[in-house]
């Protein structure tokens, strides 16, 4: 176990190092400069600005400095906001993003488990048909379309929730719903397939033969066993929520990482782009590692060994 963990953490570090390097050189390849109106600046001014941001050093030195700083959690200064460190920008904005992402994950997964199992228990009935259709809608309708529709109809027309900005809990409802659609749909499809499998197995047959109630069978035997593989979709769901957050936070003006990322992309704020890229990758890697560990613990049939799969 310890050996496995050490190996995985080594790979995680290697992956992040590769990503940091690739991002760095991609940013160096990018056309355009971070200067807003270069034509109006004198060569001296440009020189001062470049010195300030460390852009005058040779590329390899910038690279070494960047990697060393990044390892210490320092991603340089943002070009966009005068002299704000990227790490501060991230840490001050991570709260709303985490809250929205977490809420969306919880809401989506719980609703998905409910709808998915209902669909499996009432398989091939109108209940199944309706839930399958709803989850297809959840997968198919892009998050930005859903977000705009929610904002307009629930926010503006019905005045149920604030349409934008960031205040209390009520401000989080609409963005959470928009973000939760994709985890909900994925979970419900996944749970349905697993549950149908489990419900057809011998031990369910045995439980029925023993005379257990229908609810008892579903609750004690079917649900638990069909939820174990659900752990494996946590990684993809995290990635889906990240993708969604970039547009949903923008639409609802949530001061989060996703909104900042899109803004930085549009104004060539390289240090911020690189910092957020690393953050997103680290988060996904950590989630994937967590998935494998948790899966090994809750399902004893999966053995974690030091060897590759």
């Amino acid at each position, binding site marked *: 176990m310890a050996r496995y963990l050490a190996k995985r953490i080594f790979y995680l570090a290697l992956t992040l190092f590769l990503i940091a390097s690739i991002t760095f050189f991609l940013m160096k390849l990018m056309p355009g400069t971070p200067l807003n109106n270069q034509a109006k600046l004198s060569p001296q001014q440009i020189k001062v600005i470049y010195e300030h941001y460390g852009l005058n050093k040779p590329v390899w030195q910038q690279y070494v400095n960047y990697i060393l700083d990044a390892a210490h959690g320092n991603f340089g200064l943002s070009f966009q906001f005068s002299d704000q460190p990227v790490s501060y920008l991230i840490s001050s904005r991570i709260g709303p993003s985490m809250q929205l992402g977490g809420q969306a994950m919880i809401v989506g997964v719980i609703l998905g488990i409910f709808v998915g199992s209902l669909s499996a228990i009432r398989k091939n009935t109108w209940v199944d048909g309706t839930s399958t259709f709803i989850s297809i809608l959840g997968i198919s309708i892009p998050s930005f379309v859903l977000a705009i529709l929610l904002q307009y109809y629930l926010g503006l027309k019905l005045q149920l929730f604030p349409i934008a900005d960031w205040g209390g809990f009520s401000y989080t409802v609409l963005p959470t719903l928009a973000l939760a659609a994709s985890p909900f749909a994925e979970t419900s499809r996944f749970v349905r397939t697993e549950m149908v499998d489990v419900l057809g197995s011998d031990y369910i047959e045995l439980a029925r033969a023993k005379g257990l109630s229908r609810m008892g069978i579903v609750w004690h035997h079917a649900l638990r066993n069909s939820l174990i593989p659900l752990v494996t979709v946590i990684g993809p769901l995290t*990635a889906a929520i990240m993708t969604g957050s970039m547009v949903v936070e923008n639409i609802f003006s949530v001061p989060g990482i996703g909104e900042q990322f899109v803004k930085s992309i549009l104004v060539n704020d390289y240090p911020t782009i690189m910092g957020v890229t690393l953050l997103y990758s680290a988060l996904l890697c950590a989630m994937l590692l967590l998935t494998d560990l948790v899966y090994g613990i809750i399902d004893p049939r999966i053995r974690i060994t030091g060897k590759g799969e």
Partner: protein
Amino acid sequence: MEEKMKLAPDAFEPVSKKEALDDEKIVAPSRTFVQDAWRRLKQNKASYICLWILVVIGLIAFTSPITASHPNESHPNYANLPPKIPGVNINGLNGTSVVAGKRVDAYKQNNVPSKVHYTLGTDYLGRSLAQRILRGTLVSLLIGLFATLIDLIVGVGYGVVSAWKGGMTDIVLQRIIEVISSVPNIVIMVLLMLVLKGGMLPIILAIAFNGWTTMARLTRAQTLQLKSQEYVLAARTLGESTFKIALKHLLPNLSSVIIIQTMFTIPTAIFFEAFLSYIGIGIQAPTASLGTLISDGQKNFQFLPYQMWYPALMLSVIMIAFNILADGLRDAFDPRTARR
């Protein structure tokens, strides 16, 4: 002593050929794999309907360079006209819009000649929304199809090589996939789009860049199973070249996995195109794509909802149809996963 039996040839009578055949006659026509899958797909009503919806959308989109030849022609005098279909008097399709709480005829207000009408209205530059949606659909479909094609070629090739070679090659190739898939794909796409700048080819490359890993994984798993089959062994014993074995024995048996995965990749690619264009780093103005149309329409959604509704509807219908069709194809090609 027993009496020897004397048998002359003419003591035998041939069984009538017809009789023997009747016993073993196969009544149902024998079907190939594809025919069988097609038959099962047709039984799945929802998928079958979606297939035809997609065929129709595809036809309309691919003929749009002829039918919608002026998607960028702007008429500033005709800006923001609501949809109008002559002879139809339903609010929303009769050229009226609600201004300050009252429903007015926008065409009369703007002094538009009575013979001019826009089926789906116009945008803020007076460009025909119908034409732009058609051309946008074409762009989105093309990007989806080409990105999927790259996924297909790279992914299948990579998967087959990885499984066939095995050993160290396999380990290294799989590590590469692991690294690529542990980066959120939207981040890779954004970075590539920033370096390559907008346009169709960069988007296709950016979407394909990490889309192929799933295909490679599936192909590898399937090839590992096929590799140990007797007919593959027989082909190797007979001295068939590796390339020919891959082409003649592996690919046909991989086809169902490949087709199913392809059908799930196309809507994903279309989604990412719309996503990139929506946040402003995908297709650049004045070219229309469903993503840019939704992004433009969103700005006026409160007052001119049709500008976002129609492209959003088109995008959603395409995505839904592809997803339902993919589900149906999965059940058709692999009856084991069908609803039990």
